[in-house]
């Protein structure tokens, strides 16, 4: 009998609105520790919206509101005394477009530790993070070169290195391979598998094979149109990836993953 690990995130009827528009309907789910969870579903179903509520990035969007509860290791993320900056330090995020800063490779990696005043040896940290992000060999000769001179795939690995430099607990990835070629994508996927030994990863992807290849659990969302004709995102099915892809419980999931929808 294997003991069930505590979930990292527990969502209970989580709802997200932009102004008057409710983008996401009551989502309840648990995200496992040290696992890769994939969010899939058609465009506009609220995957990014949900992901951004995990580290309070939605706070930065005027009018965005979150209702229901989202606890992270037992703490209510939206509790009154929770510091969103501390939340984001623990729960890192990698975006669809590689958003490296226009400074050196070295300064990109050390940005997080610097703003958080982490007491670490920066040189060691840079090497360690770049090695973990499988970028070290390609940049070690010139850490001072401008990060914008790297290729898209290298930039995305640099963003991952930058993310793990603040020693987060969770890494959220919103379509991290959307702008990458298949080779770079494979490298990032390999990287995710090794990172999953130490980190909890939640990834949004439009690539079914990617979800099937890398994730342990998959959540399928779709768009529902209510009586007034307004579209809301909704969680349809959530389970072990192997199960979801071989024998989905809901016909809508099956349609989507077999390419008959979206």
């Amino acid at each position, binding site marked *: 009998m294997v003991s069930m690990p505590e979930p990292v995130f527990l969502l209970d009827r989580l709802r997200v609105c932009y102004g008057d528009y409710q983008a996401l309907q009551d989502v309840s789910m648990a995200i496992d520790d040290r696992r890769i969870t994939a969010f899939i579903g058609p465009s506009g179903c609220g995957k990014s919206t949900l992901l951004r509520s995990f580290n309070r990035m939605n706070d*930065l969007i005027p009018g965005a509101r979150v209702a229901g509860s989202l606890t992270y290791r037992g703490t209510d993320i939206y509790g009154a005394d929770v510091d969103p900056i501390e939340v984001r330090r623990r729960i890192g995020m990698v975006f669809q477009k590689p*958003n*490296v*800063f226009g400074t050196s490779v070295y300064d990109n990696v050390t940005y*997080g530790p610097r703003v958080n005043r982490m007491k670490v040896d920066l040189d060691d940290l840079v090497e360690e993070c770049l090695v973990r992000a499988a970028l070290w060999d390609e940049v070690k000769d010139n850490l001072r070169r*401008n990060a914008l001179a790297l290729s898209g795939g290298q930039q995305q690995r640099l963003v991952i290195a930058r993310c793990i430099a*603040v020693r987060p607990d969770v890494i959220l990835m919103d379509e991290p391979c959307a702008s990458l070629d298949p080779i770079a994508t494979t490298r990032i996927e390999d990287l995710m598998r090794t990172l999953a030994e130490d980190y909890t990863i939640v990834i949004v992807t439009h690539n079914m094979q990617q979800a099937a290849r890398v994730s342990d659990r998959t959540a399928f969302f779709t768009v529902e149109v209510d009586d007034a004709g307004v579209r809301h995102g909704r969680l349809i099915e959530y389970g072990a990836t192997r199960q979801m892809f071989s024998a989905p419980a809901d016909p809508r999931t099956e349609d989507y993953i077999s390419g008959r929808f979206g």
Partner: protein
Amino acid sequence: MSDLLRGRPRHAERVIMGVLVAAASVSIATTIGIMASLLVGTIAFLREVPIVEFLLGTQWTPLFDDAQYGVLPLVSGTLVITAIAVAVAIPLGLGSAIYLSEYASGTVRGILKPVLEVLAGIPTVVFGFFALQFVTTTLLRAAFPGIEVFNALSAGLVMGIMIMPMVASLGEDAMSAVPSGLRDGSYALGASRRQTVIRVVIPAAMSGIVAAFVLAISRAIGETMIVTVAAGLRPRMTLNPLEGMQTMTSYIAAAGSGDLSTGSVAYQSIFAVGFLLFAMTLLMNVAGIRLVRRTRRALP
């Protein structure tokens, strides 16, 4: 094959291009014309007054019987007032730009930006009388009882307020143009808003910000009406902002609208001073472009 090779003649495009080339030529021709007339006047002037005496002399008395043409008092007047104006405009303008772009809500920004633009649209002569009648008499007299009626301080302060909206507006444009992905990247690493502004947004917007500063300085050097009204028309070699001084621009304005006989040395001095002013602004702009290039190379 021949369809690909021999396109139909495109008359409309030729006409449009012709109009555009003509428009560009007008502005280039004007610039060349101004430079040529300045140069001709300046050469004539320098035949009468040795260049060393012009550039290094400390007396500017073109209307005296014993006329002296040392331009330094005008240059120092220009620089003192410009320095005061820039010291006001750059911090206030940059601060407003940061506030508008990074802190203000959409509604507040929607109200403040038009207000700033109105401020930028007030005629400079109005600012000049504001400096003379209100800033000097009401504010500065209380702080500095010995201040002269015409003084550099009031002109500089008010000029700074006049230029500030331009710095704010250009600075805000530059910062708003920074991709939101960079901000998100910074916030997602646990940076505060202040850290994001200082370490990510401002460096990424640096070329636009430097351009705003350069324009502000050029504008201050070239501003004429405020200094003519509020700083007085006495050329004086001093750094004391409580005294009146004349700038290069207010000399040109005053002498140009006076009744100097064309061909006299005093008349030609207008061109020489104008040429020097032109050279100074040109230098500013070249330095500004250089700076922008350098920061662009280091930053996105």
